[in-house]
């Protein structure tokens, strides 16, 4: 953009920068010169300045004070609960792992138990794990691909 010789098209875009206070002094000077000598761009400048003034005068409705007072508490509760869920998950993982370890040690590795029973329980466990993983994967894949998932049914 040549600021020494602005076209009307360039000037009209630069008017945005002028009303928003975003122009350098060199840009401002060139634009003001152009506006002074061009009635069409002057008219545009007045229109956009008026629009800017009117939008600035639009008063957003204030939110009742009690909502602001409780605002941080709501955010904090979300943060705190997340920490709670993390601890619950870690606790559950530790308990389940310990249970599994004890089960393997006391039952599956216990030669006093009949081999057929241990084999049966192992196969049953593997079956349940495979089915669980498959259902979980399906749910996750459907959730990822289903474009209607957010519709309340």
């Amino acid at each position, binding site marked *: 953009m040549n600021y020494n010789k602005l076209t009307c098209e360039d000037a009209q875009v630069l008017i945005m920068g002028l009303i928003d206070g975003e122009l350098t002094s060199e840009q401002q000077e060139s634009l003001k010169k152009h506006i002074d000598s061009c009635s069409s761009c002057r008219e545009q400048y007045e229109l956009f300045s008026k629009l800017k003034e009117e939008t600035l005068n*639009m008063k957003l409705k204030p939110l009742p004070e009690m909502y602001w007072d409780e605002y941080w508490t709501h955010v904090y509760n979300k943060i705190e609960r997340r920490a709670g869920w993390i601890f619950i998950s870690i606790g559950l993982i530790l308990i389940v792992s310990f249970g599994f370890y004890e089960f393997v040690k006391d039952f599956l590795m216990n030669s006093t138990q009949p081999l057929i029973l241990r084999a049966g329980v192992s196969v049953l466990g593997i079956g349940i794990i495979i089915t669980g993983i498959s259902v979980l994967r399906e749910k996750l894949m459907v959730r990822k691909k289903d474009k209607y998932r957010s519709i309340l049914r």
Partner: protein
Amino acid sequence: MVINWKEQMLTDKDAILACQSGNTEAFRHLVEKYKTRAYYSALLLTKNSEDALDLSQDAFFRAFRSLNRFDTSKNFYTWFYKILRNLCINHIHRREKIVQMVHDDDGADAFDRLEHEDKNPEEIFEENERSQMLWAGLNKLKETDREIILLKEFDDMSYQEIADALGIPVGSVMSRLFYARKRLLKEVESLNEL
């Protein structure tokens, strides 16, 4: 490090660094500083005060969760705004689908009611005929035009901040604003003629 957010004049960077080292209370400084902007940004996007309150709080929660990945040399609010914007856009899309479902299932009455709630200017602006006309004009614009005007006029972002928030070159902001405002003027003019 114990920080009293009320007594200390923290910079955003100080607060973020404190949060990154595990001080949750320092996050309050950011929430207190930006909650008004966040709420009104969400309100202008969702046009519903309850949703705006809930989504802006949720955006702060998500920002806190991702704060460890935040580059402290960047502007916090423009980064936060992207999170808020995504949440609001997802929410709007969900709501549109629900409105469409209600329209399909329950007929036009329920659809009109939900549509009216969606465009209710009294919930957003103080009563003023001109404001309501401008709001109606803004609502007729396409989302990209509407958003850039809202960021400039109501969020008071600089061109650099708008560029960062929308992920566009700073040089495009001025021209995008020009076309958006031009279309807004046209819409307001046509509403005036009615």
